[in-house]
């Protein structure tokens, strides 16, 4: 055991030594990492540190601001799972009124979900005059859409009937911590905030290794990365599973737009005002947490990512290519969107793939494995850094999350697979227009949208 380790260590030191001596070769190895990953990593790390410095001041700031909040819960085939979502909003510790709207898409086919939603009404009504109301400051309505219209139509229907000053959208399979609404609303006290991005964690963490690795991924890419990015007003996406918007702003920009990845689309459209209104700011609230169910098998995970990554490319390079202008996004967000949205998410996977192939072609296999091991440790270091930042500065459930460090050695492999898979998704989108196969809306809705 020890011998093997010693041999491995000696081998690695040789590579690193040669890398130091033969500088050119190393420089060729690492451009992707340094220019793309490292620049983003630095932005995130300093963002989190800066966030942490100002966190206590933000929490302590006195507030009497408690506007009416409308929560649009998009329900489809979740069945009785939506009860958890509705209950978690009813249970919010929030002084103002919360209007909970359960919009059921295709209530005819999803009768089970519809009945579950109707059953929840009993929590909000008074059985008789003398009974005190269980949730005095909450109201609830069910909005069934008998004909299926897709996710976007569900959200817009909810927006149409909502009467709140703040609109929150939530997935039917996501339940929320009881401080969520209060923390989200606190950001809207600043009149320059048009929207707030909410955090997501994995509800079914312990189900399989796929969900465990996704838990790690969510912690790094949502909790940690978004906290850091939002500090510099560069939040990449307001999640479709959980976000909050100022109602009049949302109505003014026309609500949600059809096509897949409506959340990223909306984020892009809000960001398109940043160039003309530099004071606008989209914060991210890492302690307003929705717990959502993620795919628990490797196969369903691959399918989900094929959709997501394909949609990313569709949105950045097809639908919103006209948004890539300095005048619209402002310098900071222009650079960020180019680096993150285009280079890291779309180009980098190709680079990594081609680079690995090229290594195997040019160099002897043993050397290549050594290089890959080196890259592995590089990414492991990155993961450990982000996890540590998350664990020590951001996490609110530290006692339950120490296990993440145990799993972190596996994570770089998972991340490598993610990159390769995202290249396949990009190819699929480019060549086969994968976004048109979305399951988020029926074909007759997709057909009527603009083609890109």
């Amino acid at each position, binding site marked *: 055991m020890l011998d093997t380790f010693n041999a491995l260590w000696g081998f690695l030191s040789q590579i690193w030594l040669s890398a130091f001596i033969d500088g050119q070769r190393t420089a060729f190895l690492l451009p992707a990492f340094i220019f793309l990953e490292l620049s983003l990593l630095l932005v995130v790390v300093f963002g989190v540190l800066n966030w942490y410095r100002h966190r206590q001041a933000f929490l302590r700031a006195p507030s009497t601001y408690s506007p009416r909040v409308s929560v649009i819960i998009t329900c489809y085939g979740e069945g009785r799972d939506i009860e*958890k979502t509705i209950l*978690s909003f009813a249970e919010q*510790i929030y002084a103002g009124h919360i209007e909970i709207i359960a919009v059921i898409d295709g209530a005819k086919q999803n009768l089970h979900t519809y009945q579950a939603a109707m059953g929840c009404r009993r929590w909000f009504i008074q059985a008789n005059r003398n009974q005190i109301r269980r949730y005095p400051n909450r109201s609830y309505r069910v909005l069934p859409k008998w004909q299926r219209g897709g996710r976007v139509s569900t959200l817009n229907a909810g927006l149409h009937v909502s009467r709140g000053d703040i609109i929150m959208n939530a997935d039917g399979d996501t*339940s929320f911590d*009881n*401080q969520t609404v209060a923390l989200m609303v606190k950001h809207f006290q600043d009149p320059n905030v048009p929207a707030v991005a909410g955090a997501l964690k994995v509800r079914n963490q312990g189900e399989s290794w796929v969900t465990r690795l996704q838990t790690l991924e969510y912690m790094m890419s949502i909790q940690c990365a978004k906290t850091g990015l939002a500090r510099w007003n560069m939040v990449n996406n307001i999640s479709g599973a959980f976000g909050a918007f100022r109602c009049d702003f949302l109505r003014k920009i026309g609500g949600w737009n059809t096509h897949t990845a409506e959340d990223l689309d909306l984020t892009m459209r809000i960001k398109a005002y940043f160039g003309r209104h530099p004071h606008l700011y989209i914060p991210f609230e890492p302690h307003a947490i929705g*717990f959502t169910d993620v795919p628990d098998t490797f196969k369903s995970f691959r399918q989900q990512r094929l959709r997501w990554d394909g949609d990313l490319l569709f949105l950045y390079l097809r639908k919103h290519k006209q948004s890539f202008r300095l005048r619209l996004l402002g310098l900071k967000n222009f650079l960020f969107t180019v680096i993150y949205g285009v280079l890291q998410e779309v180009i980098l996977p190709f680079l990594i793939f081609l680079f690995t192939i090229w290594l195997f072609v040019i160099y002897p296999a043993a050397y290549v494995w050594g290089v890959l091991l080196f890259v592995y440790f590089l990414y492991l270091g990155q993961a450990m850094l982000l996890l540590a930042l998350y664990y020590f500065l951001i996490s609110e459930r530290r006692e339950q999350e120490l296990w993440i460090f145990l799993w972190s050695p596996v994570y770089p492999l998972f991340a490598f697979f993610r990159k390769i898979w995202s290249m396949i998704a990009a190819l699929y989108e480019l060549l086969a227009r994968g976004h048109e196969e979305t399951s988020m809306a029926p074909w007759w809705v997709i057909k009527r949208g603009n083609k890109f």
Partner: protein
Amino acid sequence: MSDPANQVPALLCVDEAGEAFLEDNNKPTILCLGEPQQIYSARFRVQVVVNMAAFYDALGELSLVAILLCQHGADEALPVIRQHSNSALKLVFSNLPCRFPLDGRLPDEAALIAALTAWQQAYQSFPELEKMQNPQDHLLAYLALRGEQLLQPERDLASAFSYRYPLIELFDLGDSLFFLRQAVRDELLAPVSLIDRVRQCTHCSHNTLNYIDLCPQCSSIDIKQQSAIHCFTCGHVGEQQTFMEGGRLVCPNCSTALRHIGTDYDRPLENMECNHCGAFFIEAKVVARCLHCDHENDPSDLNIAQIQSFKITDKTKFRLRVASDERFSLDLGEQVSRDYLHWLVDWQVGLSRRHQIEFALLCLSFNRVEQAVEQLGAAQVYRIISQLGAQIKDSLRVTDVICQYQDHSYLLLLPNLPFDHLTVVQQKMQQLSSLVQGTDALAMAVSSFHAPTELQEGDNADFLLTRLLSEVSGDA
């Protein structure tokens, strides 16, 4: 109803001028308390009285046909009128408000004559009315004369059960519910419709009840509804307020932050708390506390009074038509009361258990007396019954105890009678119908019981007598 044979002393009358005068009293008299607005023709003698005492004296006037109450005091006068044997059934009119039922507003001459004619016709169809003296018969006759008027309850919040029966008060028949129970049992009145159902205190029978919810542990009234939280980490249950800490929920017991409903905490079903003993509970104990006597009743134990309206039965009409309870009764010699019979039977049953004393009970019943009167006429029925009475009396011993248990049912207690003797007695009874012609029309039935041969464990007088009666009435 003037009766020339029964001359009464002339009464003092007062005319408009206030002078007293004498008037002949053969004409039907209308007695007025106070000056009536209506003017009646000379067919009637209108007697106007303003003084209450004089009015009460005048109630004995035999030629009296109607009474008009034209001045205040109707509430006082009406009970006196109804309890006076002469005026109990007479028509009374008034325009003034009155707590008791009247026969209408002051009529004009034509209306008065119409009302009187109807009343007279009804009166003549009940020839026995004049002999009736007790208030219960007066009430029944009152209802019968007014076209089988219903005995209606009226809302009265001062009453223990929130209703009163003004007619029962009017005829001074005591406790209404008790009277009605008796009357229904005796088949004099039958319920028509259920008007209300009133719950009463089991202790004082008042219906002013206050329903209060109490702590099921210590019965304190000091309870409150609250929203409680149940911490999953340590199991602590407490009011939500005690968990609040700067916009977060923190368990006061184990200091765990409670963030997610269903994962960290939930709401217990117990949402009531007692301020006195601190118990948590789901549902409070409800008691009905009587505001009169402070007795705490379990709501499901409360007495339930049925408030009904009643009508007179065919049996009542028969009684009013033929009246004479005695005429159709067997003359069997001296009788004992029902209560005494019960006591005696219990005593005999006790003796029989302890000393194997023999005795027999015999029940005789005539089930079709009313119909027989219709068919054969009262005189014929009377003849049959008196013959039967004589026959039965012959076969009884001096020591036998006789009780007319119901109108046409008789119970005989035959002490010290061996079982074979009882069969002889039964045979004699069955032979009666051949001895007395027309007995079949009365539908006579006989049932018997012998102790100790038929005595069962747990038998008592109530049970035995009820069984015998139900056997003869053909119910069983």
